[in-house]
């Protein structure tokens, strides 16, 4: 009974879908179809073009900035440099110069 129902429904569905094809024939395009399509193509081309220009400008700016930073870091800036060439021990000794006893005084105390 169930199988019969299912096969009936299958057949009815086939008929309905075939009828749907005939009920919805291929429509004709309006006169605006081609102009509208070309307008959309040109809009897309324009946006792609501007996006490309922005991307190129951004890449150029990034490259210039990188070169500038590299040049700034490469050129020595004397004592104002934030980087020190001294070792840690040398820096410590320079910072505590007056705390360290001179060598003759130290010998006298002995």
């Amino acid at each position, binding site marked *: 009974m169930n199988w019969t*129902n299912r096969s009936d*429904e299958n057949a*009815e569905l086939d008929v309905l879908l*075939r009828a749907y094809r*005939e009920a*919805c024939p291929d*429509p004709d395009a309006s006169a605006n*179809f081609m102009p509208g399509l070309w307008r959309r193509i040109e809009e897309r081309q324009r946006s792609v073009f501007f996006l490309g220009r922005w991307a190129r400008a951004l890449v150029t700016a990034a490259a210039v900035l990188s070169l500038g930073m590299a040049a700034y870091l490469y050129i020595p800036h004397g004592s104002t440099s934030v980087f020190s060439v001294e070792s840690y021990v040398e820096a410590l000794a320079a910072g505590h110069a007056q705390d360290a006893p001179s060598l003759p005084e130290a010998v006298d105390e002995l």
Partner: protein
Amino acid sequence: MLVDFEIIKRAQAGDAPAFNEIVLAYRKRTLGTIARLISRPEDVEDVGQEVFLRLYFSLDQLRTAEVFEPWLYRLTVNAAYDYLRKHRRRMESRMSDLSEQQVVLADAMAGGRVDHEVRQRRQIAEAVDAMLSTVSEADRILLTLKEVEGLSLKELEKIYRVKENALKVRLFRARQRVLKAFGESGKEPSAKGAAKAEI
């Protein structure tokens, strides 16, 4: 093929008249497929333009003539799928949702000015549309391509780029889901009524 591959090659090289020739050759068929896939006459041209827009910008990727038609179908399917996802279909169409053309048609039908054949076509289209709106967009498109557009499994294989067996399984499941909706519609006069009227 409705156009020579030479024309496609010219269009690939940026020849606008050649591209126009391709659009003119495939426009009617593509719009028909879209109309049956989305069931919204007022949006068919918009989706059709989207298909040819995508074609224009991806034409340079085409290498051989024999893949052109499956490829155009693929673009059509993708554009219809995107449209259907964006405009999830409502189960019931309210008067406010109808296009101007549909309102005129509905008014005319109410006044008895539209003949029996037009009314029956409309009834069938609405019944199938309502039935297909109960399944997923993917099922709807696959089933429409196979059962309504009459594409073979070989053609579907090229469009979907999946093996025939996988397609058969997907088709079977899609059909089962539609059959379920169809069976349920038997309680209402819509789809089954339309099918019986057609028989």
